[in-house]
């Protein structure tokens, strides 16, 4: 039977296992939303305040579940509003399909109302994108979009569908199964053997892992490898939650604001075993571990990441779970007592320094106390999301994560305003509670999504670390710009409690730990969104700090 292009889109989404779409209606997707209306018992539809929020929600949905997130927007501004959300997903390898409407094929290129070349615009921030001008190709193009999004290293794909393709009629037959990803590549045996030899002869091995462990579901293999080789582990920001934060072999995130112990261990190791990670400049600083004589084994599913940011002694392209599993059987069981002793020393130094840098000025709460108190109300199913800035780094350093996919943050792009949309998507996907740690700067960017959180009754506890400044930039100004605080003091007088109430949510302000405990108890008992506005000292810095031009010996651990 012939059905409309709009209906083909809806049926194909359902066929591909999509149970929720995020989006915003508009002129060139009226037909598509009309078909969604007929399918509202089969596919949940969440309309946000702004398309950017919808894109972040689809991203949060994908990160919380590993499934492909779907966002729908109209042509022109609807499509361009997705751009930040798509770029965020691209930089963090999040599987997403963005569907945009466009003007009819005959109008394309005429600068007609709300027309924009969204395929051209998103070419560098998608794994691939399509414009479908022939309804005969619509269903298969969408299927291919899902296939690309979830294959290998995941990422976003955009499908632009002109209005006349949505209204045209064509035969459609649903496939019985969602598309399966393209076959993975597997690490060659001789390279893994070489890796095992390098690991066996190392005295100070260190495992550096990233988000590939989460998307590749390789947490168990990673821990087994660390145990057998007696190697301490550190991660990138994207790797957080792959292993429990309190795992005895896990030293925490390394890098610019990483844990002292992991950054130092990475610098003192004689062998770096890098797994599902891309050596971002934020994780390594300006130097390579090889500068100090360490050797590097780099295993990743994306061959283009090998030797890209850092040259490796041994680079292996392949599925991380498979590679780790085979490595485990090849390596010898080892103990490195001297190295373990050194790691214990580093951890002890770190513990001292962590306490030194707290700030408990009158009527403010130290961020670590905020995180500790909030986490005491949460459980291992709680999903933690963040925005971008100091609060993000404190959360990354401090929050006791337990379970893969429980930490959702914008790493590569560093998108302020990411977290609320992501929390809405993660809650919609899992039915679980989320906590958003944010700052007054970041929250100001997309707080309009409070409206969505209220309409969806999203169980999200929004913890604003409110220091009245753009704290991360201020910290740079303190350290590197002679304390010239150009345009980072916000001078706002937003009352976040009233703001929450105005949106139909609940909220309160905390200026000491007792107030915070009381509010947190209320927030975690609340079914919908709850805003906790926490006063934080504007000079509380994120430490340690690896200056972007420096290496481990330049680590700043204290600001006078």
């Amino acid at each position, binding site marked *: 039977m012939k059905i409309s292009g709009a209906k083909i889109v809806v049926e194909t989404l359902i066929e591909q296992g999509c149970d929720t779409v995020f989006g915003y209606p508009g002129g060139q997707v009226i037909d598509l939303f009309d078909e969604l209306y007929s399918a509202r018992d089969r596919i949940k539809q969440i309309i946000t305040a702004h398309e950017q929020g919808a894109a972040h929600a689809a991203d949060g949905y994908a990160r919380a579940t590993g499934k492909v997130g779907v966002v729908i927007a109209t042509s022109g501004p609807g499509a361009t509003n997705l751009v930040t959300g798509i770029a965020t997903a691209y930089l963090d390898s999040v599987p997403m399909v963005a569907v945009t409407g466009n003007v009819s094929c005959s109008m394309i290129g005429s600068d007609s109302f709300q027309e924009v070349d969204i395929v051209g615009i998103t070419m560098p921030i998608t*794994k*691939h994108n399509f*414009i479908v001008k022939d309804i005969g190709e619509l269903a298969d193009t969408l299927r291919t979009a899902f296939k*690309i999004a979830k294959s290998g290293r995941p990422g976003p794909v955009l499908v632009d569908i002109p209005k006349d393709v949505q209204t045209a009629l064509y035969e459609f037959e649903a496939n019985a199964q969602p598309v399966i990803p393209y076959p993975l590549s597997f690490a060659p045996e001789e390279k893994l053997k070489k890796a095992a030899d390098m690991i066996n002869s190392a005295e100070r091995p260190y495992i550096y892992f990233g988000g590939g462990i989460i998307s590749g579901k390789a947490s168990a293999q990673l821990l087994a490898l660390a145990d057998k080789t007696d190697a301490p582990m550190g991660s990138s920001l994207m790797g957080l939650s792959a292993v429990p934060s309190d795992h005895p072999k896990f030293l925490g995130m390394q890098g610019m604001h990483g844990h002292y112990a992991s950054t130092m261990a990475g610098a003192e190791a004689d062998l770096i075993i890098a797994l599902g990670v891309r050596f971002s400049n934020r994780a390594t600083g300006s130097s390579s571990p090889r500068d100090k004589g360490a050797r590097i084994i780099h295993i990743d599913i994306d*061959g*283009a990441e090998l*030797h890209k940011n850092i*040259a490796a002694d041994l680079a292996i392209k392949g599925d991380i779970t498979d590679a780790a599993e085979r490595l485990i059987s090849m390596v010898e069981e080892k103990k490195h007592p001297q190295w373990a002793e050194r790691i214990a020393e580093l951890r002890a130094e770190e513990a001292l320094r962590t306490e030194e840098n707290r700030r408990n000025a009158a009527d403010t709460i130290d961020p670590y106390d905020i995180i500790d108190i909030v986490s005491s109300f949460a459980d291992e199913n709680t999903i933690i999301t963040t925005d971008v800035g100091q609060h993000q780094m404190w959360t990354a350093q401090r929050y006791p994560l337990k379970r893969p996919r429980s930490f959702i943050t914008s790493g590569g792009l560093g998108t302020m305003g990411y977290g609320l949309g992501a929390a809405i998507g993660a809650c919609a996907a899992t039915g679980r509670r989320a906590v958003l740690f944010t700052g007054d700067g970041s929250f100001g960017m997309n707080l309009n999504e409070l409206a969505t959180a209220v309409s969806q009754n999203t169980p999200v506890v929004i913890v604003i670390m409110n220091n009245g400044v753009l704290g991360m930039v201020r910290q740079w100004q303190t350290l590197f710009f002679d304390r010239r605080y150009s345009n980072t003091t916000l001078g706002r007088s937003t009352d976040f409690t009233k703001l929450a109430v105005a949106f139909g949510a609940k909220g309160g302000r905390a200026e000491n730990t007792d107030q915070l405990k009381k509010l947190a108890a209320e927030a975690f008992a609340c079914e919908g969104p709850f805003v906790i506005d926490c006063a934080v000292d504007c000079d509380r810095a994120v430490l340690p700090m690896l200056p972007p031009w420096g290496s481990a010996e330049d680590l700043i651990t204290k600001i006078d």
Partner: protein
Amino acid sequence: MDQYVIGVIVANVSGVLSRVSGMFTRRGFNIDSLTVGETESSGFSRITIAFHGDDDIKERILQQLQKLHDVREVEVLDSKDTVIRELLLIKVRNRTEIRQDIMTAVEIFRSKIVDYSPTALVCELTGETSKIDAFIELLKPFGIMEMCRTGIVAIERGENCLKTVK
């Protein structure tokens, strides 16, 4: 820095040239020459790209190209085993006092005069880049009115082929 020539087989779909050239722009790789044309199979086009770089840059370009969905095959063409050609069309003034010199150059370079008018000559020349460059240098003193060159195309000697064209 060496010059590399790579052959790329791509799906013959709209936007594919933007994707390939955009990758070079976005990642900061410079293109010396890029040509695109049909292949023996209508579903595929062949892009020949020349660029300067070291071995590391070459590897990164290959890896990034292989990641593009529309790219089916990428191969570095070894200059020793590859026929590399470029086509030049060049227009010079047709003046009596220089005509004989131009004719001599055309003959030595095995160029062809493909248009002859009272005021202008158009010469055609095929060859490797260095030969084309030398010919242009030779004609410069006579007054080049305009010229265009195709950029290079390249194909391996012997029976080796850039595969996958089915």
